[in-house]
């Protein structure tokens, strides 16, 4: 059940002036007829959805005989990828993507949730399960037969870029290297997110190395999934449980004034805004304190840069004289932070780095969206704008003098996997580049420069 107040995101539909700017920018409705567009789905359709449904048993019970009982009036809203490009371009501040997310949650509340979407929402569980035997898990998940089975049985697209378990979780690396970790009076908290914990611990390692290089002790308290995959799949009740547990486990650090830094722009966005907003927790003190304590790591680093606190021992990433050309995509979830593009601001300090910003609207994957069989092609079509951009940079740079493109960079994990899937190039988190530039990290091997 959703609570409703005049502060709920749904109420922002009052600001819509029907201008259609959102529809003209929407990357999804541009490539598919399944999604009629953000204006139609959010401010327009929301007027035809009853406030707070399903609040009465009659409305939720398909057998009640009440007209419209048991079903939401519209299903096409489920084709919103939640990329939030609409929010970004809306001149009047309608929370379009959030209205859609709540509409989807109402659908789930009345119609139930598919097993596939329940599983996609539980990536923490999946991550943990696989991490006990990563090799076996990778074999089970990544062989063509099981991918085909997963497609047929669950509707998980066979070609979609599922991540691989890393042989060592971030927590195990932390335990193994405990003696080498910096102790300091200056402390920050690191929120790693599920992907870093199980699939890409090297992103977390790079972040920890950079923060320690700055002289901070990095505290990694127990934490769980931020809840976004569940929010995106309309499973609000479970998401609220996850969010409240994070609020509780981080509360002491928040009170102590430690910044909560994250490398996953989607996790940090959830802590900052998505969870409190979608779950109507704007009046929840713990949730609000966490919201204001949470930073995207580059947002925080840029602050340090502005105050002259960032060490300036940045070295070129290439040993040769060639510029290091790096196509960079600011993911939708980062843009939703409305903090500019802090990774670009900081990476611009790396000598010899030729940053190329994509300006593509979305890579298409949008969290769990592109993993669904019925949405895989939509996600790839949306991402084409970005893939083409990367290809153009690579082509342009063929001449020996201009250097080569061997990586892309992006702040969000699923976007990086989609980028790799769409371009064939490895995609890095910007923090890996910064760590490498400080000489702390090996970009090719994606591990600490000292081999640990």
């Amino acid at each position, binding site marked *: 059940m959703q*609570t409703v107040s*005049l502060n709920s995101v749904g109420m922002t539909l009052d600001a*819509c*002036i*029907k201008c259609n700017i959102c529809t003209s920018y929407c990357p999804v409705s541009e490539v598919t007829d399944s999604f009629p567009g953000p204006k*139609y789905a959010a*401010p327009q359709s929301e007027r035809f959805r009853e406030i*707070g449904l399903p609040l009465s048993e009659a409305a939720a019970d398909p057998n009640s005989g009440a007209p419209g009982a048991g079903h939401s009036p519209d*299903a096409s809203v489920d084709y919103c990828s939640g990329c939030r490009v609409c929010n970004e371009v809306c001149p009047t501040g309608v929370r379009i993507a959030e209205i859609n997310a709540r509409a989807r949650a109402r659908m789930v509340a009345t119609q139930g949730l598919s097993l596939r979407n329940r599983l996609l929402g539980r990536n923490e569980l999946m991550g943990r399960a696989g991490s006990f035997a990563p090799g076996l898990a990778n074999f089970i998940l990544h062989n063509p037969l099981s991918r085909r089975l997963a497609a047929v049985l669950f509707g998980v697209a066979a070609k979609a870029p599922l991540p691989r378990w890393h042989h060592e979780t971030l927590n195990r690396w932390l335990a193994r290297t405990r003696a080498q970790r910096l102790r300091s009076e200056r402390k920050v908290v690191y929120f790693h997110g599920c992907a870093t914990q199980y699939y890409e611990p090297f992103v977390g390692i790079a972040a920890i190395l950079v923060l320690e290089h700055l002289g901070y002790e990095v505290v990694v308290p127990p934490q769980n999934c931020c809840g976004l995959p569940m929010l995106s799949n309309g499973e609000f009740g479970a998401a609220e449980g996850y969010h409240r547990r994070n609020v509780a486990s981080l509360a002491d650090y928040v009170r102590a004034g430690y910044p909560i830094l994250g490398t996953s722009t989607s996790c940090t966005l959830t802590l900052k805004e998505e969870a409190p907003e979608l779950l109507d927790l704007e009046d929840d003190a713990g949730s609000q304190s966490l919201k204001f304590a949470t930073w995207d790591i580059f947002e925080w680093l840029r602050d340090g840069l502005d105050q002259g606190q960032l060490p300036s021992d940045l070295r070129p990433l290439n040993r040769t004289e060639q510029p290091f050309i790096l196509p960079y995509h600011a993911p939708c979830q980062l843009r939703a932070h409305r903090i500019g593009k802090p990774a670009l601001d900081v990476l611009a300090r790396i000598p010899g780095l030729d940053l190329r910003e994509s300006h593509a609207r979305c890579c298409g994957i949008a969290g769990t969206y592109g993993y669904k069989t019925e949405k895989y092609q939509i996600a790839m079509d949306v991402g084409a704008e970005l893939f083409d951009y990367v290809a153009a940079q690579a082509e342009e740079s063929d001449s020996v003098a201009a250097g080569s493109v061997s990586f892309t960079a992006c702040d969000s994990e699923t976007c990086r996997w989609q980028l790799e899937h769409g371009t064939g190039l490895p995609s890095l988190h910007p923090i890996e580049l910064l760590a490498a530039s400080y000489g702390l990290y090996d970009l090719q091997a994606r591990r600490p420069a000292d081999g640990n």
Partner: protein
Amino acid sequence: MKRMQTEILVIGGGATGAGVAWDAALRGFRTVLVEKRDLTHGTTGRYHGLLHSGARYVLKDVDSAVECNSENRILRRTHTHCIEDTGGFFVVTPEDEDDYPDRFAAACRRLNIPCTEIPTVSALRREPLLNPRISRVFELADAAADSFLATHATAQAARQAGALLLPYHEVTGLHLSGGDGNRAVSGATVLDAVSGENLRIEADLVINAAGAWSGKVAALAGIDVRMILGKGVMLATNRRLTNTVINRCKMPSDGDILVPIHTVSVIGTTDEQVADPENLPIEQWEVDLMLTEGDKLVPGLSSCRILRAWAGVRPLYQEPPTPEEPAHSRNASRSTQLHEQESPQESRDATRALALLDHQQRDGVSGFLTITGGKWTTFRLMAESAVDAACAQLSVSRPCRTAETTVPGVEQGHYWLGHRLNEIEEEELQTELICECELVTRSMLEGAAQRNPTVTLDDLRRDVRLGMGPCQGGFCTYRAVGILHEMRAADNPPVAGEWEVAHMQSPAHHHNDGSVAEDADNSPASSPSHTLVPNAPQRSAAIDPQAELSEPNLLLRDFLQERWKGVTPILWGQQLRQERLDELIYLSILNADHLPVDDRESPLSSFYRSNS
């Protein structure tokens, strides 16, 4: 002059008039209805949409309470699809007097009006935006009613029973015959507002159901009917704030009703006595009062986007007490109590019970009845009383059948908010939308324009809700004008047969239906014929062949002006921003204020020019 002969002539195409025509036709009378504008143009089309349970009047106006209670049950059967079964809450806010709720509940019990007190927590769970400081909540059978659709459905039922309905026909004179003592009304002369031609209608009996205009109509027969015209101002919010009708549990007063109707919530009303039903200015204090009072029901309502303000006028009537009481008709068939009271000075205090004036008994003029007073909720009962009296005057005995007869479309069940969106989704009609705010498809618009007299775009608004959403015509006006122009230029032959109004608000039905009426067989073969049957829809095909160029311009200008009229009283905040965009579209891009219209006027022109 064209002539026509009928048994019963009904004046007024609101809920009551349509109801009278339906009732009379069902009883086998040859019936003609004339309305000076479009159906529901008057009070019917400007009310908040509340189907009363009767509870509102249990302590103030017992007759009306009883009437509403029984009619509420009947209309749920006869007009099911025009009603959304929202239920109603009567809530006690901190400002409301202490003993009223108990007296209220007792009166409901006494009058057999089902009333259940429910815990405030469950009320707040159902309606999360409701004032959390309410202390008591009573649940009643109030509901929301679509008065446009209901009147159209009643009108179609009347047509199916053989009645002829003539919108845009204004009565200019009543025919009086006989001298002192045996004067009689024998018909009327009406002006076809579209063609400019006069039509003479002979009738055995004329029923004046002109609502707030009843006094003016009666005056044409030299009869003095002093209506108490109670202007009510209402505001619509941009979206629903509750899904239940909310009433304050107190003596009926200003701004104490919040009705969820279609996509909006309507807060109403004021009650100010006015002299002229055409002149209904909306005062700033009235808007302010609605917002202040609205905040007491839904705190923060005043900061929500307000789409529009409008005013309707109640056709209240209270027989002045006179010494020669026996010479006058009774106020209403079962009204007795209020007769002993002083004639009310304020319209708020005037009874809402129906008033049937038999002018033979009252004024010595036979062949003429006036049916007025009442509520929208009691329109069927008003019609029944009027036609009962007509039977008595015509010395026939034919029982009323409307309470047991359903109008076309009831098989759809009660209306629900998501109905249009659901059909758009299931039929994948998203690209067909003309009015995006209210989800009006091209085929809905064309269906309505082809089969219902469409003189102005405002007529289409009443048919399919064109332009009633947030942008108030900003994006649909130019589209609709283009479609109408195209239809007229194509010189399509008028569609044969009845306009199937049962699904006039259904996107899917129109789409499947194509543009061909397959309901010609709806008219019973036995339908009584009239001397002259003008083809009403035909007039919409070509209003004036001389004005091909100015016609679409006129449609555009007048609809924009009409929409603008309702926006000006609430022009702030979000709606101001919307109007600024609409202004840029129409004035800056389309130069709409300089469109050549050849000084032509539509019936809508005078409406938006009047200070109402």
